[in-house]
């Protein structure tokens, strides 16, 4: 049966699972805070956040870090809702 890239419970792998902890970088903490703030303002809910993550192209999903997936999803959802204009973040970052 077709399964999404995120739907990987029970999938076999020969690769070792990395269980090491790491200190969160500032952008990761800020991403978490951003998602919380958007949820409290009613702009994004957790189901939308998950759906946005699951909609990532499989190769991008595999390469992205955990909070990079959150950022991808937040940008996707906010663009859908017209809070962000398409390409707005890219233009601001390029300045």
């Amino acid at each position, binding site marked *: *049966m077709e*399964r999404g890239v995120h*739907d990987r419970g029970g999938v076999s792998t020969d690769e070792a699972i990395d269980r090491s902890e790491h200190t969160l970088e500032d952008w990761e903490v800020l991403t978490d805070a951003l998602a919380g703030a958007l949820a409290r303002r009613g702009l994004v809910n957790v*189901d*939308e956040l*998950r759906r946005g993550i699951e909609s990532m192209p499989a190769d991008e999903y595999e390469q992205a870090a955990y909070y990079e997936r959150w950022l991808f999803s937040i940008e996707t959802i906010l663009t859908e809702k017209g809070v962000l204009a398409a390409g707005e973040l890219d233009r601001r970052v390029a300045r």
Partner: protein
Amino acid sequence: MTYRVGEPVTVAARAHRGHHRTPSYIKGRTGRIERVHAAFPNPETRAYGGDGLPETPLYLVSFARSDLWPDAPVAGDHQVYVDVFEHWLEEPK
């Protein structure tokens, strides 16, 4: 609530492209109702801007590891517990 604690249930084996909380490793597998949690907004519509209503009953369902992964190289058996919404459950055939 359609199902009661102790009843056997089979998880629907249907494909579903959108967001849903039913992992593929339980689809088509039969387990047992362990707990009736409550009714919750449906994440399958809330994920797309909907209100998630009507609220949908959510159950805790147990499965035998040996039913989900019969070839797993582990000793013995154990239970695997998954929260499953009612519209994914069917009476076993």
